[in-house]
């Protein structure tokens, strides 16, 4: 049990990084990590020793996240598209504008594309690993990655050209 805890703990920082990027919110991210770890502990007997524990834990996080998104689909959509996102933009200091822009733009990339983009771009997984974590064919990984990158590029280009207020209207 101690060994298992130690193995788990070693992956927590990366799970938190991924969760933070995915949700864009510290509290929600840590909720997600907590739920993931609890589920991993309960399901630990299903993990095959010798296989990649990190990939296994990311798979669990993906499943937990998908369930959460499904459960609160309406609320999330409102939170992302509604005016509620604007006050943070308005309050942004100019020197941090770029970082905020990226964060906001990232949240405007559809979840399923965002997941691929983050697993590959931030977690630096191979396409095979990402496909395994998300339970999708590798061709789907590639197409989502492509769409995510183009979407993000368009969002950032748009955000730089206009003020965020105009983009959202």
């Amino acid at each position, binding site marked *: 049990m101690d060994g298992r805890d130690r193995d788990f703990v070693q992956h927590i920082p990366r799970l938190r990084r991924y969760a933070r990027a995915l949700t864009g919110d510290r509290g929600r991210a840590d909720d997600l990590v907590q739920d993931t770890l609890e589920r991993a502990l*309960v399901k630990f007997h299903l993990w095959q020793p010798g296989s990649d524990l990190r990939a296994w834990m990311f798979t669990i996080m993906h499943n937990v996240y998908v369930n959460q998104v499904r459960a609160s689909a309406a609320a999330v959509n409102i939170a992302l598209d509604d005016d509620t996102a604007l006050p943070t933009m308005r309050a942004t200091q100019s020197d941090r504008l770029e*970082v905020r822009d990226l964060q906001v733009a990232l949240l405007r990339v559809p979840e399923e594309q965002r997941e691929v983009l983050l697993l590959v771009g931030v977690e630096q997984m191979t396409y095979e690993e990402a496909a395994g974590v998300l339970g999708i064919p590798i061709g789907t990984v590639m197409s989502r990655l492509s769409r995510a990158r183009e979407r993000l590029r368009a969002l950032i280009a748009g955000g730089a050209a206009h003020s965020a207020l105009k983009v959202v209207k």
Partner: protein
Amino acid sequence: MSELAVIEAELHAYVDGLLPQARRPEVEAYLAAHAEDAQRVRAWREQNQALRDLFDPVLAESLPARVRRPDLTRRMRPVLRYAAVAGWLALGGVAGWNLHDYNVAKSADTVAFAHRAAIAHIVYSPEVRHPVEVGADQEAHLVAWL
């Protein structure tokens, strides 16, 4: 070989460092000749870098307690589950025991009833002609019988 068309998946793989080494020069040659794709590749690379710059600091944060010790709440769950199993077993045992007593009492009743029935049988079965009673209108027969 170098004539093989470069497909978009290879551009992504190039950005992500996942392109086989042997293919790199060909992709680079392709990018040198296609400014628009080169521009996209540059943008994607910058995205990766910017995302890492943005989220890597999370790795250095100290872990909140609830994330560090996630097991405190739900690790209890299997224990609770076993407790529940034991509880139900105990309940079943108690119920079964009481039911047993109840059945024993009932079967004692049954034995007593059977006993009385047997006595009644022994008393009445030898009498063939008058198993139950003689009607009032058969007085003569009754007198003769008595």
